[in-house]
């Protein structure tokens, strides 16, 4: 369960085998539990399993996507009341109430998720807290529907005309819980899950890889809400009576606490955290008076002392738990060929582009065309506006004036993810990796746009889904081998050296199968050997028909690889032409070295 997705899992290392053994024993223990434990304890475990459905969902939004939600108790309450009202007032059976509760909660999840498109961090925390309070108030006040503070009685679950026993209910919770974990596991270990984590680690880079931030954030919110709704409905039938005070803000904090203690952003984290925090207090009754105080202290201690939770601590101790196996076939020519029809002509045209930051004109009436299948370099002193230009091309900035066309399509007003999917890949001047993803996963995020299957196919993990995943895996591995960093596949991106991080960024951009590759100072911080390797890589990329737009300060490097060089100074073009022409241009010399008049003074 802890193991990362790995399509060639024929050989596991000792750590991985141990984990599977533990997981097997745990499942067996849960299956046999009703035969050995007393009914009171069984009820506690049933409750823990319900909570686990919710916390697994919460983990998708808070742990994987990095959007803190303190309103989960509200969604849980909406699920519970939807189920309870349908059952109590309309006499609907549990089996219909459950999907209805999931749907209604999911809808509210969509509403709750909408603000994330504009804000995150403490703003989002306040919004979700506010949402929880609003739900609680409405549950109290709307007495005709909810019964107000007096609560609502819920009929029992029936199964073919028989009322479900305590044991039956336990197995129902266990079944739904395992289903939830299976679904979540399949989503997380797919391109959906990688998109979530990419957004958490670096929104800018994620959108430049073609990930639609709006769509994926909302999806994560809805998924977490649907699971909260299911848990709520289950709870309503389990407790046979619900009232608004069961869905208070402190429950939301408790849910978040469980995933922090267990390990946010891992499948096993919520399992450990939830079981621990629900079951353990049952053995510490003498501390009941202090329970909330202890939770508060636990919250502080765990975010400071163990921010990755129990699972994070285990991973640190046994790093070999994550160990990708090489795919069956590693391609030696992994650079995707650009099969675009128009081999001649201009892939990108910029006309009279102006970009202002406040009073400063960063780019001033700039025009340039990039010929298809060439290496076009942009040089200029620091602060000339070079990176701004790349940010305009791929939609991070919108120019104030002017026109940008890419493959004869207008780019103005489009978001980076649209432009990325249209075929513009990029790297960044300040490396922007997904630091908490492995090297291999970083490259696989680059292949995001190549995935076609929908969320339902992903959940069911059909043959098609597995094949697509396999292709992405193989491509990523091959690209990393080509870059010479395939020995680092299982390591976290943050642990690589500066040079390796730059190579990783190029591999990630190549996984996008771009038509135009924008490289922003790829040689910065590389040593001589690495620069030679980079030169060869850029030539290989060009041979495969991919156009390269390069910003670089190493002049020898630029002169060697470029077909055309443009020189930028103070946001304006001062020269353009073949490398040797530009080198001898007096304006260029002036911009770089200054004029001789300085000597006279």
């Amino acid at each position, binding site marked *: 369960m802890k193991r990362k997705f790995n399509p060639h899992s024929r050989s596991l290392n000792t750590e991985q085998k141990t984990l599977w053994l533990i997981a097997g024993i745990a499942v067996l223990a849960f299956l046999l539990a009703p035969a050995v434990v007393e009914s009171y304890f069984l009820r506690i475990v049933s409750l823990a399993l319900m909570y686990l459905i919710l916390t697994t969902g919460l983990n998708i939004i808070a742990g994987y996507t990095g959007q*803190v939600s303190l309103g989960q108790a509200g969604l849980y309450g909406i699920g519970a009341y939807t189920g309870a009202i349908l059952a109590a007032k309309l006499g609907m059976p549990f089996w219909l109430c459950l999907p209805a509760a999931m749907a209604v909660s999911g809808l509210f999840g969509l509403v709750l998720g*909408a*603000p994330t498109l*504009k*804000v995150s*961090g*403490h*703003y989002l*925390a*306040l*919004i979700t*807290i*506010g*949402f929880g*309070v*609003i739900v609680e*108030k*409405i549950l*109290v*006040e709307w007495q005709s529907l909810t019964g107000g503070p007096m609560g609502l009685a819920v009929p029992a679950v029936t199964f073919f005309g028989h009322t479900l026993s305590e044991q039956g209910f336990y197995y129902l919770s266990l079944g739904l819980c395992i289903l939830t974990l299976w679904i979540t596991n399949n989503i997380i270990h797919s391109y959906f899950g990688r998109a979530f984590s990419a957004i958490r680690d670096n929104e*800018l880079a994620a959108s430049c890889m073609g990930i639609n931030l709006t769509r994926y954030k909302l999806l994560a919110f809805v998924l977490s809400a649907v699971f909260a709704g299911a848990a709520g409905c289950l709870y309503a039938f389990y407790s046979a009576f619900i009232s608004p005070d069961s869905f208070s803000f*402190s429950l939301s*904090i408790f849910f*978040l*606490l469980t995933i*922090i203690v267990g390990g946010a952003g891992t499948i096993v984290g919520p399992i450990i955290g939830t079981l621990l925090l629900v079951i353990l207090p049952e053995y510490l009754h003498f501390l009941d*008076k*202090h329970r*909330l*105080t202890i*939770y*508060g*202290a*636990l*919250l*502080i201690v765990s*975010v*400071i002392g163990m*921010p990755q939770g129990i699972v994070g601590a285990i991973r640190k101790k046994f790093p070999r738990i994550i160990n990708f196996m090489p795919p069956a076939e590693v391609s030696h020519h992994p650079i995707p060929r650009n099969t675009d029809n128009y081999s001649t002509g201009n892939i990108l045209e910029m006309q009279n582009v102006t970009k202002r*930051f*406040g009073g400063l004109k960063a780019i001033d009436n700039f025009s340039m065309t990039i010929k298809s299948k060439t290496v076009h370099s942009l040089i200029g002193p620091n602060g000339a506006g070079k*990176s701004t230009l790349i*940010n305009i091309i791929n939609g*991070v*900035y919108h120019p104030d004036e002017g026109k940008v066309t890419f493959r004869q399509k207008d780019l103005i007003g489009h978001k980076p993810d649209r432009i990325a999917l249209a075929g513009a890949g990029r790297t960044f001047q300040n490396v922007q990796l997904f630091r908490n993803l492995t090297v291999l996963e970083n490259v696989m995020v680059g292949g995001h746009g190549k995935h076609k299957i929908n969320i339902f196919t992903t959940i069911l993990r059909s043959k098609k889904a597995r094949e697509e995943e396999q292709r992405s895996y193989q491509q990523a591995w091959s690209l990393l081998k080509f870059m010479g960093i395939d020995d680092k596949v299982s390591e976290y991106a943050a642990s690589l050296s500066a040079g390796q991080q730059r190579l990783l960024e190029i591999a990630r951009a190549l996984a996008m199968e771009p038509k135009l590759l924008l490289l922003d100072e790829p040689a910065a911080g590389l040593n001589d050997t690495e620069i030679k390797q980079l030169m060869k890589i850029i030539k290989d990329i060009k041979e495969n028909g991919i156009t390269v737009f390069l910003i670089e300060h190493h002049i020898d490097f630029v002169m060697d690889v470029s077909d055309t060089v443009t020189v930028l100074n103070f946001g304006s073009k001062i020269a353009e032409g073949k490398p040797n022409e530009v080198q001898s241009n007096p304006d260029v010399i002036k911009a770089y070295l200054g004029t001789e008049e300085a000597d006279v003074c």
Partner: protein
Amino acid sequence: MPELLISGLVMGSIYALLALAINIIYSTTGIINFAHGELVMLGGMFGLVLVVNIGLPLVVGIVVAGGIVAVFAILLYYSTIKPFGDNLGGSLGWLMATLGAGIIFRNVAMLIWGSHPRPFPPLGGSELINIFGVNILQHEIWVLVITLLIAIFFNVVLDKTILGSAIKATASNRNTTRLMGISAEKMVLACFGMSGAVAAVAGFLISPITFAGPEMTVSIGLKGFGAAIIGGLGSSRGAFVGGLILGILEALSMTVVTPGYKDAIVFLVMILTITIKPEGIFNVTYEKKV
């Protein structure tokens, strides 16, 4: 209607008072102290001990409680915010940690004082005075005046003094601030101290209205955050106006819906404001450089 407006203004002033103290911490660290409501509650509870149990005069009580809560605020900084280092924007650990501290404060207060709210003496006695035909408690006038004074004080400190520039510099970049010869740590501690003292004053002003108890600020605290955001984090003027807007809105909403729904309406407005204009009424945004 005038009574409604007055009570709206009074509650609004209290939200403003919370917002001002939340703001001063935001001004120097860029974070929101999610335990602020509980600091206010501690102010009220210590007030109860000092004024009702020990029998100190109200003014002395305010000063002593202000000192105690300032120490609590500084301890809060050391235990829940400092461990996350200089780059607080990078993680949300401090958010969970301050929430945790709030839970501890509230529950320990409950263990010590019980959960039952207790009456608290108002400033200026309990006689009503009549102004332009409206009966008003002297305490309510004090609430308005004190809030206004504190708002002006913060506005002057932050915008007009060298201390204010140092505080804002600390929020913007701590390392550079240190290189300029300013102790970033001292700036942060000063702000937490001020925030704690103002929290205690707020506790003294709220308690006669809501009664003093460990849960007195559960929803008021949240509205304080709302007021700070509606006005625009980092702006004292914004915090003041934001609080008043929220208070009046709340009072007016009671004419339309039953009292139970008023919190729901206030929070809905807060959510909408954050979503539509997260920078608040008084702030402007600049395009972020990538």
